[in-house]
């Protein structure tokens, strides 16, 4: 039961841990738990995987689209 509660605490604080937003002591406790608990470690790794993909994921405008947007904005400014 104690282990289960520990898992709940760790999962609750996983975002804070990922964001480096927790105290040093709290981080150490989480790291210790992640070393020992395969299920929480897997949750953490999966979270990291998804967040890494988020950071890599980029949509971009072509040069032409960018130029067109700028022209439209300035045309509308002139008109208004």
């Amino acid at each position: 039961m104690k282990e289960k509660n520990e898992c709940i605490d760790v999962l609750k604080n996983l975002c804070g841990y990922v964001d480096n937003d927790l105290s040093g002591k709290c981080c150490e406790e989480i790291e210790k738990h992640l070393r020992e608990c395969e299920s929480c470690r897997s949750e953490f790794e999966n979270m990291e995987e998804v967040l890494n993909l988020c950071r890599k994921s980029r949509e971009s405008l072509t040069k032409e689209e960018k130029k067109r947007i700028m022209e439209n904005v300035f045309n509308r400014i002139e008109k208004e």
Partner: protein
Amino acid sequence: MHLIDKELIEKFKKKDKEAFSEIVEEYSDRLYNLIYKMVLNRDDSMDILQNTFLKTYKSADKFKGESSIYTYLAAIALNEARERFRKEKRFLFFDLDIIDEEKQIPDISDEKEKENAGERINFALAKLPESFREVLVMKDIDGLSLKEISDITGLSEGGVKARLHRARMLLKRMFNEGKE
């Protein structure tokens, strides 16, 4: 990378078109990505980006400089996106082909990893409620701080953290469901 300095901002506040043009040039790519990830549709994103810049210029004299110019732009973009879809009573922001249930989420182990990563994330993002998607996109895709997101959304920092936690958990679940 061009530096948006104080002098430029002062010119912008006086509606100097050259200064404004430099701001557009500097932030259009980042802002487009932010908007796209919120609405998941290319045409809508370009329209919203255009309206965002127009509104920013029109309200330039109201910019107090308490936040960064990018935060100011992002707040206007968020309102534009919300307003647009509420007016049109559209609740699903995304392109339908993105959310086709039959479509397999692509494998990311090939050389097009970057492109496919985007598709996989878009696929999962499309399934999040709007309010969750907003904070997640601002933090984990755009890289805004909790304080900046709090300023933009009007939520407390604690509120942003709580919503972000739920959004990440849900995104992870949607992402994993897509893999199965």
